[in-house]
Structures are given as C-alpha cells and as structure tokens.
C-alpha cells in the first residue's frame, strides 16, 4: 500500500518511459560523479579541508540532490516490480537498496579523497602511492563502516538457502587464496612471475572476491 502511494507519479508513466528515464538517470549519474570529482579536485588542496563555507554548502547541496535523484530512481524501479512481492522479497530488495545507498556516497568519497591527493581519483584504490594521513584515516573508517554494516545487514536478511550459497562461495574463495598465494610465491622465486607486492596481493584478494561471487551466484540461481 505504502509502495503504491509512493510510486503513484511513476505509475502514470508508461513502462518504456520509466525504463528510459532510469537509463538516462544512470548515464547522467556517471557524469555527475565526474563533476563531483572535478569540484573536489578544485576545492581540496593537498588533502587539506577547504576553509570557505561556500564549499561545504555546495557539497551539502550536491548530497541533497544526489539523495533526490536516488529517491526518484528507487521510485521508478519500485514501480516496475511485480505488485505481489512477498515480505521476504521486500526485505531482501530493501537490504540491497540500503547497502547500495551506503556504498555510493562512500565510493564517491573515495574518489573525492583520491582526487584531493592530486592524483587520479581511482588511484586511492588502484595505486600504492603515499596519501595524506587524513585521507588514510577517513578511507579506513569508511571502508570499515561499509563492510561491517553491509555484512550485518546482509546476514540478518538472507534466507537459509542463500546463507549456504554464501558460505560455500566463501569456502571456495578461501581455497583459491590458499592456493594462489603459495603458488605465486613459488613461481616468483623461480623468476616466472613478478615478486609479490601489495598491489599483486590486493589483486589476488579482488580475484578471490570474484570467485566468491561466481560460486555464490551459481549456488543461488542454479
């Protein structure tokens, strides 16, 4: 009932118009992230916080606008889903909305903090170059909050079947790591692959996450 009231304006649009609008908003969202990154590059100087109050007002306005766009997007997506959604499905999709809602501002924050270090935005995650202490502390806090909050919300929401898929996926990912690290170490000692650096280690961890996701998806949707 609540969803029907909230999605009222979206229901007046045709389904094609709604899908088109969702795609347009997503494309514009990519450009908006670029604009935010550019603005951050101009405002933050060498990792220091800006002194002019206008910068904070513009940031607050951008966050408010992003929240509004997010609400419009969520309403459009909600209006497209079947009305006969069960209580579990509602909780499940709300859980993903919360996790994505937490991830987007933290992801934008990472880009902004990376830019503030006078480097390419994504370099914060893909490079090993030194960063400002403030960037390091904020990045660590954001990552910690995101991972812990997401894990708690996820495991409290999913059903028994998905929990098992997740646990088996994690086990397979662990075996992948347990094999990949010693293999790389041995091959590096033989001069076949480069010496293990933190970059390679992070790449292996990223690969293990992909392995986990594939195993989880296969077990959940087979």
């Amino acid at each position, binding site marked *: 009932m609540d969803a029907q009231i909230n999605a009222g304006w979206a229901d007046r649009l045709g389904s094609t118009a709604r899908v088109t609008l969702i795609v347009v908003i997503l494309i514009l969202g990519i450009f908006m992230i670029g604009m935010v990154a550019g603005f951050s590059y101009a405002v933050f100087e060498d990792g220091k916080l800006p002194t002019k109050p206008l910068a904070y007002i513009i940031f607050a306005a951008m966050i408010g606008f992003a929240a509004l766009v997010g609400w419009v997007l969520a309403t459009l997506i909600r209006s497209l889903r079947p009305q*006969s959604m*069960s*209580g*579990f*499905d509602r909780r*499940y999709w709300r859980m993903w909305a919360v996790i994505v809602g937490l991830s987007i501002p933290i992801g934008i924050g990472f880009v902004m903090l990376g830019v503030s270090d006078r480097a390419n935005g994504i370099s914060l995650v893909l490079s090993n170059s030194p960063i400002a202490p403030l960037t390091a502390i904020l990045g660590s806090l954001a990552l910690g909050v995101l991972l812990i909050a997401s894990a708690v919300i996820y495991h409290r929401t999913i*059903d*028994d*079947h*998905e929990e*098992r898929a997740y646990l088996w996926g994690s086990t397979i990912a662990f075996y992948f790591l347990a094999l990949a690290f010693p293999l790389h170490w041995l091959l590096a000692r033989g001069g076949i692959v480069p010496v293990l650096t933190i970059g390679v280690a992070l790449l292996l961890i990223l690969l293990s996450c992909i392995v986990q996701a594939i195993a989880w998806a296969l077990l*959940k*949707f*087979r």
Partner: protein
Amino acid sequence: MENRLRILRAERGWSQAELAGHLDVSRQAVNAIETGKYDPSLPLAFKVARLFGQSIEQIFLDEVK
C-alpha cells in the same frame, strides 16, 4: 534428498513464489528444495512441516530406507 514439496504445493494450487511467501524465504530456495539441489535446515524443514500439517518424515524422504 527427495521430497514431496512439489506435490504438496500443487495440491494447494500455489506457485513457487506463493509457497516462498508462506515460508518467508526466496523463490530460489523453494525451487532448490523441490529439485533436490538443496536440503533445508532443520528450522526450515519444521516450518514446511507445520505449513502442510505433516511430519518432516512425511515430506522429506529418507533415502536410506
């Protein structure tokens, strides 16, 4: 593990999604149980048994027997 879930569901004219709604699980969970790809936990098996008014042994078949 073999089970009679699909038969019991069909007797009531429920779709997998409707049964999932009654059990408060995903539709994929119901499908995985019905096709024998996933054995439910004991709490979920009890929930299934309560829903259909039968014992666990009447719904989930012991393959050793």
